[in-house]
């Protein structure tokens, strides 16, 4: 490519990434602002708003709820994901493509549909506790990611290893424990991380399932946005970003480029 073209492309890249990062950078900077308004640039910096947050119960509880739901949903999704991946990749089933498509369908259907459908269903079947509703809903939207992560890892494991284990005298369960499980560890960890982030981030499915006393962090931020517009939101957003950053970095480190569409 000719030189001026290269410079043009480089310039475009700079602008585009600035565009992509501007809102996030802005929030992070403002969270350290010392003023009561969201004026940019901030006159001086402090941790004032973080301290304010620490004193606000509702953010603390929302964070804890989000973490708890994410943890439980992820564990469930990963366990189910391992089972499903084993069946899809190693079990010689007919119609594997159809089954896989069915298991992956929560990914393609709009989250709000899932949320409303689950709301109606839970109400009709008498599942009342918001916390339970959230965990189950998150479990079902995380499961496809878990299946994909574990499945991808499993596909990279030579089936001859299991054959060898069997000829050496180990039955199915021992083969799983001694050979497959250790080799699947990267896939399982990745599955857990993807599930955790998906659950932690989620807005539209959770929107319909929260209760008065059980609110997740993204939704707490959402409702706050509607009537309180001060740097405390910037601060909580920064906390949110920090948690997700750590987790996404770990995912990138373990599995290469992450690709997870979510709402």
């Amino acid at each position, binding site marked *: *490519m000719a030189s001026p073209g290269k410079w043009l*492309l480089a310039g*475009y890249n700079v602008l*585009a990434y600035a565009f*992509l*990062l*501007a*809102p*996030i950078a*802005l*929030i992070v900077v*403002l969270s350290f602002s010392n003023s009561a308004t*969201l004026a*940019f640039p901030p006159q001086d910096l402090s941790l004032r708003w973080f301290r304010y947050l620490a004193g606000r119960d509702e953010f603390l509880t929302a964070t804890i709820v989000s973490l708890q739901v994410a943890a439980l949903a992820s564990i469930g999704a990963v366990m*189910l994901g391992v*089972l*499903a991946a*084993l*069946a899809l990749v190693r*079990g010689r089933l007919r119609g594997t493509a159809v089954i896989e*498509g069915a*298991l*992956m*369908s929560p*990914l*393609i*259907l*709009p*989250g*709000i549909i899932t949320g*409303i*459908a*689950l709301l*109606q*269903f839970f109400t009709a079947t008498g599942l009342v506790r918001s916390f339970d509703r959230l965990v189950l809903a998150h*479990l*079902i939207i995380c499961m496809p990611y878990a299946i994909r992560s574990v499945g991808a890892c499993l596909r990279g494991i030579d089936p001859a290893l*299991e054959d060898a284990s069997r000829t050496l005298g180990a039955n199915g369960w021992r083969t799983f424990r001694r050979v497959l499980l250790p080799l699947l560890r990267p896939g399982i960890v990745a599955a857990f991380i993807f599930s955790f982030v998906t659950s*932690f*981030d989620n*807005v*539209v499915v959770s*929107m*319909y399932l929260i209760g008065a006393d059980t609110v997740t962090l*993204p939704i707490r*931020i*959402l409702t706050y*946005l509607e009537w309180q517009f001060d740097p405390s939101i910037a601060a909580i*957003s920064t906390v*949110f*970003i920090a948690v*997700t*950053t750590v987790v*996404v970095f770990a995912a*990138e480190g373990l599995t290469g*480029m*992450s*690709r997870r*569409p979510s*709402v």
Partner: protein
Amino acid sequence: MRPGPLLIAPAIAMIALFFAPLVTMARRSFVSDAGGGMTLENYARFFGDPYYLTALAVTLGTAVLVTVITLLLSYPLAYTYWRARRRLRSILVVLLLSPFYANVVVKVFGWMLLLPTDFLNGYPAIVVVSVHRSMPFMVLLLASAMARIEPEWLESARVCGASGRRVFRTVVVPLSMPGVVAGGIVVFSLSVAAYVVPALVGGASRGQFLPVLMYQQIAIAQNWGFGAAIGVILLATSIVTIGLGNRVARAGRIGRVMSDGFAG
């Protein structure tokens, strides 16, 4: 080697937590909110009222617009990443992934701070913010597809005498089509189903988007039947889109787009 019984637990989860609720919702859409038995009243109300038909058109049209803009803006970024050498790549990866560090609410909040107020609550803001949140997905999907292009193919085109521009036009673009289709479907689906973006930055325009309408009908007006009908219509739109996408992909012989939006 392992039999189907392994699937029992996942299958129960899927059926109980996904398919059954969808069926319940679909059934609910055929029940009138005024009470009574099965009826097509909710759908008649939707398709008979120009307001709702407009909303459908706006939702779909905006999704198309957002998809096209996102594609055009993302392509150069994906191309740059693909051609970048190791050191530049590792920097780019960090930048590319950074939008994932914040979820949609945080990003919208950032935009609410950045945009001037009169621009803020309106249709253009929806488009801008939608494009912003869609670009990371599009870039990643495009880059994945481009990664499958072997450097040797480009080299042999150059050896045949093609200029850089020509190689790009005749080799890179066609071979990146699986990524274009996959990215297009993912971004389109995200946009059609988006609630947070129109709700927060759309101002008066927000009522023209189906997900917002759905929320209003169910959470505010308590019209569960009608809300469910809107949901079914949204669902049908998603399924049709993916089906069409796969057909286009197959027609161009560029492989199947799998249910998770990853081109294969």
